[in-house]
């Protein structure tokens, strides 16, 4: 077991609390940087996919995991990010500018949309955002002159400093674009968590009433959380659309937002690691299932992915609501304490439900 002897407040403030953590994440970064030379281009594409989903997942994580607001409508904001980024690029804005701008735009619009939704609690917000996701589909069709409607759009060529980012010709370039975005978003997310705003998010999540008593403007905090969350989701959406090469209203179907939500729950709500672990599950589950059905010699079963996905989610909510990362934390603690870990150490606290209704 490692002990942390803190000698300065900076231990809790800086990005990596100690040398060990720093070296672990440093090693991970080095591994990620040399990955294109280790694995073949098919799997590199899959890893790119993981990173893109993780960016969008971090967006929803900020809202659901950190601030405790459930959104079933993030597909709408992924779509917004994607269309705005591509439209900007078609008008000659370089991607390095278009991508962040698309994120900012999505964030601002998300925050504006969130304003009326702020008074809604739990399930009502979920329904509101679900309606948004369904509306987005129709709005894309209505705005055909800009969005191409059902015929969709093709992603423009991407050039960064004279290098063409092409998924087929040069998969490593795409991988680095996704990796760069994921690293930047993760850093921003980490910064928020160690700053007052991140703590205000957690305060709103755990008790709105006492957050208010501590001087946290709950409405403003929720708006910011929603806006930032949409901004990250928009970035993820833009990358997703560009990576897919072509997209239309169906690409950002409302089921995508449900998938995103399931992803972060399986990964572990409230943890940055959770978004990445969830993205790995999302990206590799279809491969895994197709290999499985091939080996069993059966024909592919339509809808198997979503079915298994649903079952996985049920299993996680019942047995491991903290997700994969939560499971890992428990295993680590168990190993560190070995053989002194007690069975009921991780027992969940139950919150016996009381009505929110007056009647």
């Amino acid at each position, binding site marked *: 077991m490692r002990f942390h002897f803190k000698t300065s407040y900076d231990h809790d*403030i800086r990005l990596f609390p100690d040398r060990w953590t720093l070296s672990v994440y440093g090693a991970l970064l080095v591994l990620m940087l040399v990955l294109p030379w280790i694995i073949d281009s098919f799997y590199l594409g899959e890893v790119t996919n993981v990173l893109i989903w993780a960016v969008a997942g971090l967006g929803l994580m900020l809202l659901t995991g950190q601030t405790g607001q459930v959104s079933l409508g993030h597909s709408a904001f992924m779509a917004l990010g994607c269309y705005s980024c591509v439209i900007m690029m078609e008008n000659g804005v370089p991607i390095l500018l278009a991508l962040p701008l698309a994120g900012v735009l999505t964030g601002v619009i998300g925050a504006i949309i969130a304003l009326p939704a702020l008074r809604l609690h739990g399930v009502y917000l979920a329904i509101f955002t679900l309606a948004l996701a369904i509306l987005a589909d129709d709005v894309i069709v209505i705005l055909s002159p800009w969005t191409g409607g059902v015929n969709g759009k093709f992603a423009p060529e991407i050039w960064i400093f004279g290098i063409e980012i092409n998924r087929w010709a040069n998969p490593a370039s795409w991988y680095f674009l996704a990796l760069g975005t994921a690293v930047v978003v993760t850093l921003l997310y980490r910064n928020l968590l160690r700053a007052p705003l991140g703590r205000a998010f957690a305060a709103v999540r755990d*008790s709105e009433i006492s957050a208010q008593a501590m001087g946290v403007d709950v409405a403003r905090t929720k708006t910011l959380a929603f806006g930032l969350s949409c901004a990250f989701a928009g970035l993820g959406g833009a990358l997703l659309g560009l990576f897919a090469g072509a997209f239309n209203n169906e690409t950002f179907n409302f089921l995508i937002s449900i998938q995103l939500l399931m992803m972060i729950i399986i990964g572990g709500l409230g943890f940055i690691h959770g978004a990445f672990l969830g993205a790995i599950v999302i990206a590799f589950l279809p491969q895994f299932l197709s290999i499985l059905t091939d080996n069993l010699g059966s024909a592919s079963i339509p809808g198997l992915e979503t079915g298994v996905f649903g079952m996985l989610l049920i299993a996680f909510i019942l047995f491991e609501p903290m997700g994969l990362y939560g499971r890992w934390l428990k295993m680590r603690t168990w190993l560190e304490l070995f053989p002194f870990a007690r069975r009921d150490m991780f027992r969940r606290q139950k919150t016996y439900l009381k009505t929110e209704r007056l009647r």
Partner: protein
Amino acid sequence: MSLLTLENVTLKFGGVTAVNNLSMSVNEGEVFALVGPNGAGKSTVFNMISRFYRPFNGKITFDGQNLLDRRPNEVASLGIARTFQNIELFDHATVLQNLLVGRHRHRKTTLVEEILFMGRTRSEERKHRLAVEEVIEFLDLQAYRDKMIMGLPYGVRKVVELARALATKPRLLLLDEPASGLSVEETQDMRWWIDDIRRQMGITVLMVEHDMGLVSKVCDRVLALADGAALAEGTPTEVQSHPAVIEAYLGTSAISKTANAKGERV
């Protein structure tokens, strides 16, 4: 000089009058207690000061400013901090993080500074941390600094909630039943702390408490409430021996009030 004043405040829930034409004033630097049977409207008074409820009529002023113009989150920035009857901590965060939320009203950094973690964010964080450490030191919470609230025993949570309120560096501290559910020793600690909060930190304390032992030891003045109206005001001894108060609690003549006070620790 009076720091907090309520003038003719009335609040009704449906047909029930929770607080009826109540006037009171808390002086700067004193420890003031609200006592009374359950349902007397003590917590409701707190919730009106915190602006969770809006009184039907009447005025609430803090340091000469009209509190009723303020939104709930602005009350904290005026320098009023509080604890809750059924502890309302941020359960999925550590003690340290909880106390740092208490520093929220002193936040100077903007969104952009925080998301990029610029230099000022770091130096502000150090300042917040220093202020919080002082509170941790004061309330002996060192052992729990990095523990999650979820796993803490009740007594410790109670102290953490007090610590979080102190971390806001308030001028007025509202304590909603600070000793309820505490053991004899813990209540004893609470007593010293409340004394020190007033003496060392110069913070005015307004509290709701049932434990008359604690009240008579730490409070300068007491206001007894029953059915939302003031019954008696004065020093703890005066109020305790006031006939109307004895009647409200023990119900020598009014039997209906005994029903109200049933199950109450006097």
